[in-house]
């Protein structure tokens, strides 16, 4: 039973994620999380102003149900299946982060520096989270998918457009992690 609390190995996790994608195909659907952002915009009534959101979001309700399930899964995993040994990242990574003023994980999934409630005293961190989200939302819709839609679903179906998008994801990620993030947090 120990394995339930430890960090799940990559080969087990990757395999289950692959099965989840196949399962949704078997249900006649596709695996893609960012589409839900478009549905939420549509539910908020933005379809009246912008035609992109004027679509039948009800046909996408199943995906919102998947999201609801995922949220419950996150709640259960964090509250009943975690252990102080979790998030054992590379010690060199921890040192690098310390130099940028970011606290070590010590079993936590998210750094306090960026996600603790004290950020409400820091307009800079709030702005970082907001802009990060904005890039994710804008980029995933522009590219027509995110990690689930392109990296997993698209590459599994050997799609060249998805390969271009995934290369884009990594180029953007490397620029941010190596050049911009140190500047932003200094």
């Amino acid at each position, binding site marked *: 039973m120990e394995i339930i609390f430890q960090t799940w190995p990559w080969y087990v996790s990757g395999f289950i994620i692959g099965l989840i994608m196949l399962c949704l195909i*078997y249900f006649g659907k596709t695996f893609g999380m960012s589409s839900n952002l478009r549905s939420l915009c549509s539910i908020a009534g933005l379809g009246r102003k912008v035609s992109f959101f004027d679509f039948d979001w009800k046909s996408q309700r199943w995906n919102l149900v998947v999201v609801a399930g*995922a949220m419950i899964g996150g709640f259960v995993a964090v509250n009943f299946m975690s252990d102080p040994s979790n998030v054992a990242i590379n010690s060199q990574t921890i040192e690098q982060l310390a130099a940028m003023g970011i606290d070590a994980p010590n079993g936590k999934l998210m750094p306090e520096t960026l996600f603790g409630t004290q950020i409400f005293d820091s307009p800079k961190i709030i702005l970082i989270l907001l802009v990060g989200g904005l890039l994710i939302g804008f980029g995933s819709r522009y590219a027509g998918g995110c990690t689930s839609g392109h990296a997993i679903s698209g590459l599994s179906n050997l799609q060249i457009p998805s390969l271009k998008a995934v290369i884009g994801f990594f180029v*953007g990620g490397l620029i941010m992690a190596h050049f911009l993030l140190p500047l932003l947090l200094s």
Partner: protein
Amino acid sequence: MKNILKYIIVGFIFGIVLTKSEAVSWYRIYEMFQFQSFHMYGIISVAILTGIIGIQIIKKNNVKDSSGEPIIIEDKEKGSARYWLGGLFFGLGWALVGSCPGPIFILIGAGFWTVFIVLFGALLGTYLYGVFKNKLPH
């Protein structure tokens, strides 16, 4: 009702796996982009490998979906600019806040309330794409 249940269960497993594999962790994404661990690369590669094999089996055997219809997986639209540029924007955001759309929801469910700011930003970004869609190269 049964329909809702199967999607809840799939989502529930997805939420647990992404949390327990720590793919939702900001730290793991940072570590991945620093090439300091194989963990995330392993997860993504095995997921794709499983998917490739599964989809080949589905195609070779003309597997029907759960309602008996033939399974048709649509090809992604052709194009270049939207994939390179959209991908680039997405990657910048992914490495900044350490989460992609799935984990944003999972983390909020897990009680990381400040991630609501990221979700709000993501909705705003999606809205802006809708507004400027016709002016962008695709």
